[in-house]
């Protein structure tokens, strides 16, 4: 006999973890039928996972050339005992120094990071949650510009009880967040008695793949300073910026904007995206607020980075030559991949949001929707998963305000697989277009046999807009 579920907490039996959402159907489809070039060429191609496999060869080369960095090799085993027992939540000094140095390099050496402020956490996931625990109490809220990283719902809210207040952005200005939108969201929240403790966003953005320009950053910082609320900047894609505007960290802006209260500024970083080391679970909380550093550091006991990982990374990230080369290669390879993919899509008449960073693009499939609703978006998405056999992420999972946008990841596979994915998309898009033409032609045929008085209002099928009620795809 199974124990009554009432004996468990609401958290345990609830679904705020988000894993029951339809968004995960794509993952399940992939897990059940994963693509493999030889063993399963008809399988589902995973393009829903923002993983960076473009530079793993560089890491592997470094590992081979530096066996002493690992405590498991003959060269490194002497350090095993000391590392194995090290569990100080401050972290290894050389690790913190190496992380601070790497973060500086990823920002072109334009800022200085202090190792005393580097606090570990279990991945960026853990870092975001820890900051919420530090900055907000249950039922307080954070503003988040849409579209935003889907897992924020879990990371920011699940255990903390902190509410997310979306700040709507739309495609008319490429989803850039505006002062108006911020003020409006803030005011609405205040009117309903919700206490806003801060603003959190990813820069570069996931899923947009864009980095914030100077003016927007200034707007944001003036806004939070004016309201005296916190700003949390998740900069985990910092090194993937490959085109203008160059990456500007909030750390750089602080240097210029003296009047902004530094106690409000907090950065989240991780090596999962820039370095392609998600399995290492290295998350960093970097705060300019001493109380937050103290609190986050104590909470890091719940998610310390393994000392083995700290020791390895301290060695690797202190290798200046390796790091300089790596950072150069990352942005070069991401740029190349981005170009191949976006050009490929362009050839088939599919456009993407103009982006300069990240491991993905936001594909514009609004034209392919039956109607401009999220239901249509979900139907189109299911077709892409089940028929086209590509796992991509629908904009609704990112709380996008407009239906028809899909995030597609391009850095977690080799080029051949990418080409196969493009082929499948092409095939689908062209067939879809043909079907549409055929249907609207058929519709026209029906109409032309009906009342003649409407003749002059009937347009040719090729000019038929997707919004026209006469078109049924």
């Amino acid at each position, binding site marked *: 006999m199974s124990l009554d579920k009432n004996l468990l907490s609401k958290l345990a039996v609830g679904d705020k973890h988000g894993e029951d959402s339809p968004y995960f159907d794509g993952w399940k489809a992939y897990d059940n039928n994963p693509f493999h070039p030889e063993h399963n060429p008809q399988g589902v191609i995973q393009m829903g996972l923002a993983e960076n496999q473009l530079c793993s060869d560089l890491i592997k080369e470094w590992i081979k050339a530096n066996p002493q960095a690992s405590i498991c090799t003959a060269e490194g085993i002497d350090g095993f*005992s000391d590392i194995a027992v090290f569990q100080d939540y401050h972290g290894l000094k050389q690790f913190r120094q190496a992380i601070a140095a790497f973060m500086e390099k990823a920002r072109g050496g334009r800022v200085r990071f202090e190792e005393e402020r580097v606090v570990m956490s279990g991945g960026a996931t853990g870092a975001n949650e820890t900051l919420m625990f530090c900055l907000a109490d249950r039922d307080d809220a954070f503003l988040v510009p849409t579209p935003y990283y889907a897992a924020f719902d879990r990371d920011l809210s699940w255990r903390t009880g902190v509410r997310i207040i979306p700040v709507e952005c739309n495609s008319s200005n490429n989803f850039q967040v505006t002062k108006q939108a911020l003020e409006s969201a803030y005011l609405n929240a205040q009117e309903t008695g919700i206490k806003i403790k801060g603003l959190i966003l990813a820069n570069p953005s996931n899923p947009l793949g864009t980095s914030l320009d100077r003016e927007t950053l200034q707007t944001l910082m003036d806004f939070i300073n004016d309201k*005296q609320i916190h700003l949390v900047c998740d900069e985990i894609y910092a090194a993937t910026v490959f085109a203008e505007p160059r990456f500007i960290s909030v750390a750089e802006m602080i240097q210029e904007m003296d009047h902004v*209260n530094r106690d409000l500024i907090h950065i989240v970083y991780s090596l999962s995206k820039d370095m392609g080391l998600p399995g290492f679970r290295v998350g960093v909380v970097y705060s300019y607020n001493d109380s937050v550093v103290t609190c986050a550091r104590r909470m890091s006991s719940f*998610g310390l980075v393994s000392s083995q990982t700290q020791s390895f990374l301290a060695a690797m990230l202190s290798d200046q030559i390796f790091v300089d080369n790596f950072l150069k290669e990352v942005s070069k390879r991401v740029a190349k991949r981005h170009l191949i993919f976006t050009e490929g899509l362009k050839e088939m008449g599919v456009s993407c949001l103009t982006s300069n960073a990240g491991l993905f693009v936001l594909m514009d499939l609004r034209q392919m929707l039956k109607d401009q609703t999220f239901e249509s978006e979900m139907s189109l998405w299911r077709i892409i998963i089940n028929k086209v056999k590509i796992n991509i992420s629908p904009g609704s999972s990112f709380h996008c305000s407009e239906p028809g946008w899909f995030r597609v990841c391009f850095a977690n596979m080799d080029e051949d697989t990418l080409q196969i994915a493009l082929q499948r998309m092409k095939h689908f898009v062209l067939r879809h277009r043909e079907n549409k033409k055929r249907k609207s032609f058929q519709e026209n045929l029906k109409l032309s046999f009906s009342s003649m008085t409407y003749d002059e209002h009937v347009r040719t099928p090729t000019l038929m807009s997707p919004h026209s009620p006469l078109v049924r795809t």
Partner: protein
Amino acid sequence: MTRTEPNRSSKSDSENSGGGGGGTTAMRVIVPLQGVVQGRGGLFLGSVIPCAFFYFLQFYLKRNRKNEPDSGEPSPDSDPSSGSPDPTRSQSVGNLTELASLPRSLSRILLSPRLSGGAVSVSGRAGCVIKGGDSPYHVGQKRVEEDPYDESGNPDGVIELGSAHNTKMDWVSEDPGEAISDGLCMSGIASYEPCHGLIELKTAVAGFMSEATKNSVSFDPTQLVLTSGAASAIEILSFCLADSGNAFLVPTPCSPGYDRDVKWRTGVDLIHVPCRSADNFNISMLVLDRAFYQAKKRGVRIRGVIISNPWNPTGTLLSRENLYALLDFARERNIHIISNEVFAGSVHDEGGEFVSMAEVVDTEENVDRERVHIIYDLSKDLSFPGLRTAAIYSFNESVLSASRKLTTLSPVSSPTQHLLISAISSPKFVQRFVKTNRERLMRVYAELVKALKELGIECTRSSGGFFCWVDMRGFMSSYSEKGEIELWNKLLNIGKINVIPGSCCHCIEPGWFRLCFSNLSERDVPVVMNRIRKVCETCKSQN
């Protein structure tokens, strides 16, 4: 009649493991007082008078505490190895070390620091976490970091006898046989792998846990969820089994870490159920029951009871009868049992029998297995706390499912998983390691107890784990928490040894100290004894 520790959730959030919480202090006055009163007025008056006194004291303290910060100095959080602040660093970094010396009256200011601009509030829970760092537990730790003992390099440094490290087991000398690998050369090692543990690792851990129970239980790897450390494991279970505002019963003395692991972020409270030296600190089911009903009357929902076996800090092993009684209790009250078995592999008493909750649940019918959740920690038995791997073992599929999802927030890294798979999959190595560990602990424990006895100091019989629960009541200037803290200060500053005072473990009787011996070799024992002797002589001359 014995009394139970009242629910401390009604007090301000600033209560912490070592701070002089009014409840514990008051109880330490009541317990001896009760004995006196009972002698005169019989059972009834002997109970009513202390009750009345106690409740009025609580009421008074509660009213007054709302307006005062009642914790001590904030704990410094700067990197201890950095020494004094570098003048070229930013001013606010300098402030990180200055926080250490801020006087008590300024502790409230920390809630809204004014370091470089307007007042900014962090969360209420951050405020509690920051203030909680001033307990003897943290202060002692910091002293050790600043001035660590080293046999040759720093012979006058502070000897760490506080935290549960097992630093004397050396993997390399134990010779795992084949080379251990962290899988760094495998493709996909850096990819996302299940945060709650690869099945190969779970299988290896299940095997290790069986070894620790001398193969009386076979653990099912699919019922394991791995996470980055025991703190995280306990926190995850707290989130799964209780809602904010609920509480767990915890017999005391208990691990100082529960205040952090259970309470900090979950909103769940702990209700301490005191055990007494007269009973050898054994759990009284009567007292447990009373605590349950008192909480219920106050409107606090109890969700479970947390036990540890071997017990932290006393080192006692719970008998089969104890475990059955606890299971019956849990079933009748419809609550969970969290059995913290992190020291299962460190049973050093040859006559002692460690019985895991899993074994009892396995062999008994009519037991609600789904109430039972076990915590295990590879770091304790395998001597590598740095690698951050602990396990939740549960018979409840809903708990396992929720826990797996929660490990995304506190995961075990891929290289560590591969290292562990490679290291502990060899049964011969595991057996040899566990045996060597036990023998070493046994030798050091025996030396230590003998030496303490020569100084006139007794301890409870410890059969497992890394601790000696030492009776130093005779050396206090006054039989009170104040006397205990004074003695602790002497041990730290004169004796230069860091031990954990009983108040951090919520022990109701002052004068007991937790001494961790797993860091010591037999050679270190005389050094420690000399230090203790020095302090004892100082105390005797002062008293």
